[in-house]
């Protein structure tokens, strides 16, 4: 006798979609999205009913740097151009403590941002209290975002979420920055988080598609009570991209999960606006699959490819080594350091100059 696996019954669930293509997608565009194009994309997302749109440098507030690249415009210029054009959508920003500061958050608020994602590595939530508190003081929709969540077990991850909640986070996210998690990993973490947090605190999930699990993982999260899902229209994001918004909305429509988004409008903008913007096809390929397989921060991809070429080392070797050395988001400088070390080991560089 054979049984067919039943889809979980998620009928009637409501999910708030948070689009990432103008923030995570900045990574895939090497931070080179012109202001006019941001406005065009954001306007189309607004038109399609997407309620929350993130707009910043890929690394968030304070991201403009040699470490993370310089965008075509300042965060303030992007936000001031996009925010006034929104008819229903709210504009959010990313803030990673250690990179972004409260001064930059104030400035983003002054330019129209009304929601913020305060992101830390999944074990370092206690670096976020002042930023979360400041965002709440400004009256912003405030989310705590636990990155590289596969590197922490469910119970301890939930404790980190609890800390963010205690600082004032209204929503706590499990973030699969490396696109490494399988649905079971997501289920365990979301469940632990739901059990640990107050009932009024929302939970959410941010996926990357490096193992093709973006949609499945997001559904697993909803099953455990997630009411917010990050996705990116056309999948434009770091690594193999984020959970593609239009695909996710199609699946939600089929499952009677309410997103309030217009599927056909999203499909159209993907085809007509997003795909033509892409410098490379954002998909699972050799390097992005390596990220997911080895559990490496998705943003490292393009840096590893560039530096791999410079020093004659395959990007995959650099990424695997970074995974082995347990490098985390923000340590992009260690990509060149690792490439240099590998090049020295392989006799591709003279040994360092002695005094």
């Amino acid at each position: 006798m054979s049984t067919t696996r039943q889809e979980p019954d998620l009928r009637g669930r409501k999910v708030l979609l948070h689009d990432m293509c103008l923030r995570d997608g900045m990574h895939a565009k090497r931070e080179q999205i012109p202001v006019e194009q941001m406005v065009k994309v954001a306007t189309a997302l607004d038109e399609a009913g997407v309620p929350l749109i993130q707009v910043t440098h890929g690394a968030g507030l304070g991201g403009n740097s040699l470490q993370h690249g310089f965008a075509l415009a300042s965060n303030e210029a992007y936000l001031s151009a996009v925010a006034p054009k929104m008819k229903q959508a709210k504009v959010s920003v990313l803030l990673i403590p250690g990179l972004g500061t409260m001064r930059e958050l104030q400035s983003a608020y002054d330019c129209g941002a009304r929601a913020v994602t305060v992101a830390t590595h999944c074990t370092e939530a206690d670096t976020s209290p002042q930023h979360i508190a400041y965002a709440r003081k400004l009256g912003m929709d405030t989310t705590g975002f636990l990155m590289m969540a596969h590197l922490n077990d469910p119970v301890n991850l939930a404790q980190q979420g609890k800390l963010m909640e205690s600082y004032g986070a209204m929503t706590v996210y499990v973030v699969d920055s490396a696109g490494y998690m399988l649905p079971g990993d997501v289920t365990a973490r979301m469940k632990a988080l739901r059990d640990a947090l107050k009932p009024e605190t929302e939970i959410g999930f941010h996926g990357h598609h490096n193992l093709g699990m973006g949609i499945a993982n997001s559904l697993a999260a909803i099953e455990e009570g997630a009411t917010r899902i990050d996705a990116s229209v056309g999948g434009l994001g770091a690594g193999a991209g984020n959970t593609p918004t239009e695909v996710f909305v199609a699946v939600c429509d089929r499952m009677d999960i309410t997103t309030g988004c217009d599927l056909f409008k999203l499909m159209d903008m993907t085809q007509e606006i997003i795909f033509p913007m892409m410098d490379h096809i954002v998909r699972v390929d050799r390097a992005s699959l390596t990220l997911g397989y080895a559990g490496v921060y998705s943003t490292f991809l393009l840096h590893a490819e560039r530096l791999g070429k410079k020093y004659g080392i395959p990007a995959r070797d650099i990424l695997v080594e970074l995974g082995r050395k347990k490098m985390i988001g923000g340590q992009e400088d260690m990509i060149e350091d690792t490439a240099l070390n590998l090049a020295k080991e392989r006799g591709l560089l003279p040994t360092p100059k002695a005094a």
Partner: protein
Amino acid sequence: MKKIKCALIGSGNIGTDLIYKLKRSAVLEPVWMVGIDAASEGLARARDMGLKTTAEGVDGLLPHVRSDGIQIAFDATSAYVHAENSRKLNELGVMMVDLTPAAIGPLCVPPVNLRQHADKLEMNVNMISCAGQATIPIVHAVSRVQPVDYAEIVASLASKSIGPGTRANLDEFTYTTSDALVRVGGAKRGKALAIINPAEPPMIMRNTINCLTEGEPQQARIIDSVLSMIEEVQKYVPGYQLVNGPVFDGRRVSVFMKVAGLGDYLPTYAGNLDIMTAAACRTAEMFAEEILAGTIQLRATEAA
């Protein structure tokens, strides 16, 4: 030989590590440890190491300053209480070495500008931050060769080496360090990034220093300047090591450093702790040597 008596304020990682450093010094002697929690492990450790302790904050120390001959104090509390601590102790003629990001006194990086501060008889010098101590010497090494338009540093720190004070006040760390890249490093603009990595076993402190020079970098002179600066820092932090670079890419100069600690209080991965306490100790020693030689005399500041 006579030693200058010192008080330590703050019994966390930094204060405890300082006890080890001061005990080895030829001119400094740790006498008091000041805390705020009578039950704290830090105060118990200090007592075990032979220091007098108070759990009543700086006010608990003040009545003993004159009788115990305290001349130098190290503040490893937080930016928010430092100003008050400093005012009270300066009034009694005690010189302050500030290890918080308060930065109310001039910023000090020993191989760059310690001499100037000692000559001016500053009563409060600030040690910036661990990242500042680890990176500003390199920025200065480049900027003394040719103008630096922009300096950007990335400090990667082992999670276990970062105490609760720094974690809760990360922005102060960022602001103070960024500012010091300009004021002490000599760059026209500066930006500091901090990453806290929880890997096990803990990673050794890493620092990447990037400078954008004005005009083409003078490669040979920059390499010489950086290598000789590294030797200067190694005099008080032996584990300060070049891993890669200087790498030149257009106007960009990149230097990849690692800092292994001496393993006094925390294991050797916590180079960030060592470079801060070693710099503070080096700074106090310079003042102490001058006091002992009679070339400078600390004076009580006027009450404000």
